[in-house]
């Protein structure tokens, strides 16, 4: 992040929702994360996007595949620990040659206050690579919207499986009762 980034340009959540609209994404299946809060609220305020809170992240992957079978584009959104829940379900879009667009907010990176987040957080690239999902990391909030737009275009137009990974420094660090940094 540089000093030249204005607050408006750094509103990655609004940019990402604009990208969903441009991609004609009609379903968002998600498990919430503090870092996804504003993004999910803005997406829910849009007409024509079904927001589905799923019990586990693998359901989000399966729902996206069902949406594709029915002719709609969908997004699976989750925090990094959720990636640890999905590898077997990722076989579905991979074996079936279906597109998949994922948005993952990172936990467990340097500055994390919960050590239990670090294990799966560190494993995210290896887990996704093992299951054939391309990972595109974003560290600059000004680039999140365009990264999601490009990932969606590549995924849906070329039947590829792509995850946009938002660095923890981009979304801010979660603290507990005054410990650490403030929520973002």
């Amino acid at each position, binding site marked *: 992040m540089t000093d030249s980034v204005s607050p408006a340009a750094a509103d990655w959540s609004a940019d990402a929702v604009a990208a969903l609209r441009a991609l004609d994404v*009609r*379903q968002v*299946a998600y498990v919430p994360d503090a870092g996804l809060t504003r993004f999910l609220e803005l997406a829910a305020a849009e007409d024509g996007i*079904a927001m*589905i*809170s*799923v*019990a*586990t992240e*693998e*359901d*989000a*992957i*399966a*729902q*996206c*595949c*069902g*949406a*594709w*079978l*029915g*002719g*709609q584009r*969908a997004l699976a959104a989750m925090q990094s620990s959720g990636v640890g829940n999905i590898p*077997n*379900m990722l*076989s*579905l879009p991979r*074996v*079936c*040659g*279906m597109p998949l667009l994922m948005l993952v907010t990172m936990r467990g990176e340097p500055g994390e206050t919960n050590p239990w987040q670090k294990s799966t957080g560190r494993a995210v690239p290896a887990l996704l690579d093992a299951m054939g999902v391309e990972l595109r990391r974003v560290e600059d909030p000004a680039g999140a919207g365009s990264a999601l737009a490009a990932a969606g275009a590549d995924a849906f137009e070329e039947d590829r499986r792509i995850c946009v990974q938002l660095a923890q420094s981009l979304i801010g660090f979660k603290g507990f009762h005054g410990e650490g940094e403030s929520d973002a």
Partner: protein
Amino acid sequence: MLDRRAAVRALLNNRGGDLLVVAGLGAPAWDCTAAGDHDLTFPLWGAMGGAVPIGLGLAIAQPDKRVLVVTGDGEMLMGLGSLTAVGAHKPANLAIVVLDNERYGETGMQRTNTGRGTNLAAVAKASGIPVVATVGSPARLGEAVSLARSARGPVFVTLKIESAMHDLVLPPRDGVQLTGRFRTALGV
């Protein structure tokens, strides 16, 4: 107890282009294939626990079509949480039918927890699915079919079936082909 092949034949009888079927892995997929392979059936060979959320995504995408998930008790047990999303969103065009023989059939007929007290229809009801039923007698099969095919959903029906094994009637196993034929038949 119901004969699974007869039950699935009844469920899928006289289907047309307005019925979209997701078939859970193992015997439910074979039952659906035995009833007549169809471009608008998406049979699973894996992705255990995914049948209901696939059906949910499909039902949202195609609100004017009936979406029928036909799966087994083992597969449903792995994805119980997905019933909460169905109950919360309440797609009127989605029906879930679980063929419950209280066994993991594909791995050697080991017992599942539906034979030890888990009541799947009760789980569905408690998850917010408004129409639920458990049917185990041939005399009530017609009622179950009516719920699955035409009642305002979401609908959840447990069919208690005999644990007898049947001939393997395998669907195509190429996932790319299964996806392509489904989307082509649907015109998307």
